[in-house]
């Protein structure tokens, strides 16, 4: 009887421990590689973006947000870069150079599990 209790206890404890180990090491068992998924981003056809690559990587969503606000609410549809070049505040301006929403937006956004709400209103091309 006593031995049975002991075994039951051990099953519970080590079962719980196994569950912990499974959750703690869950990521280690998953498939998938880092580079292959995202680096097929279509190369840009234009010459130079409105800001540096590093800046755009980290802040493109803020640029788009600012564009939406100033263009739609204030009617200011022209973006002037620090070095004086002018761009129309329009999603097509981005996609004109970075062709193909499929690769340009989706690959990274899917990889990072970030869902932009652009395409809730804008038509996908």
């Amino acid at each position, binding site marked *: 009887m006593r031995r049975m209790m002991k075994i039951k206890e051990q099953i519970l404890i080590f079962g719980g421990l196994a569950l912990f180990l499974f959750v703690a090491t869950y990521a280690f068992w998953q498939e*998938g*590689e880092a*580079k292959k998924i995202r680096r097929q981003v279509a190369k840009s056809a234009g010459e130079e973006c409105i800001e540096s690559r*590093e800046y755009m990587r*980290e802040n493109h969503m803020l640029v788009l947000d600012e564009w939406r606000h100033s263009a739609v609410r204030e009617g200011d549809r022209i973006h002037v870069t620090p070095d004086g070049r002018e761009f129309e505040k329009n999603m097509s301006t981005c996609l004109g150079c970075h062709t193909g929403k499929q690769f340009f937006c989706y690959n990274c956004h899917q*990889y*990072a*599990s970030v869902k932009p709400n652009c395409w809730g209103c804008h038509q996908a091309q």
Partner: protein
Amino acid sequence: MKKAFMPLIAVVLLAVIPYVAVQFAGLGFLFGVIIPYAAIAVFIGGFVYRVVDWARSPVPFRIPTTCGQEKSLDWIKQDKLESPSNFRQAAARVLTEVFFFRSLFRNTKAEAHNGPKLAYGSSKWLWLAGLAFHWSMLVIVLRHYRFFIAKVPGFVQILEGVDGFLDVTLPAFYLTNVIILAAITFLVVRRLLDAKMRLISLPTDYFPLFLILAIAVVGIFMRYITKVDVMSVKDLMINLVHFKPALPEGIGALFYVHLFLVCVLAIYFPFSKLMHMGGIFLSPTRNLSNDSREKRHVNPWNPDVKTRTYAEYEDEFRDKMKKANLPVERK
């Protein structure tokens, strides 16, 4: 106050180390690869060690702390959760404690009023803040799986959707970010404001609070204010979990602060009060059923003591007892 300041200074120092080392000394590989591997190894190894150590500790008797009517006669109503009498009830007691912190719900507060008047009142704030903190922490940890798994699993996406359902700010604002900050702030302030709490609080109480607070603040900074290149961060993490360590270029030093503090937390975890994560399940005062009056629990390592019953005594001396007219049980 020293008890609170020392951990605070320790956390600040721990945050500065990786910043300086990565920004100025170029030690990205140490802080991005070597220390994280060491941390996960210590965390898992230490956790398993502690649980196995507890599992091997003998618990010969039933020692539950109860606060309800134990199982008695049929017409006396048993309090099945507060005084469980079988495995199922004891398991329900442990699980409700784990998920809802029932013992904290009983928290009371003593206050001395003017004159010799001592008042006790119910105080649910600790329960509320504790619950808010732990649940937020769980959601945040699970949300971070998006950085470790190439194809982000569905449950993470569901959590992100629920957590960010307000759909304000860019990047999407997560409720748990604010809840965890508010809850930790309360848990720190609670220890600092009340003299009785200050007296019983130790550096080991403050340190994890400050550490988790720092991790959360740096994380929130990276998400909403200073920004890091999430792609490179995820590349680094995916490389780590597939044991192909490679350090991508251009991750901000702030990320290494976040990562290093998490590593410190992971290494500190198994050897500290934070082990209550495993300990809550293994507390004999909580996970045993209160059945001492139903079943006999014999200490398994009791020595085999040679005993002699009265019947044996009488057998030996029966004739003499009869001659001396002493009463005997068997003729």
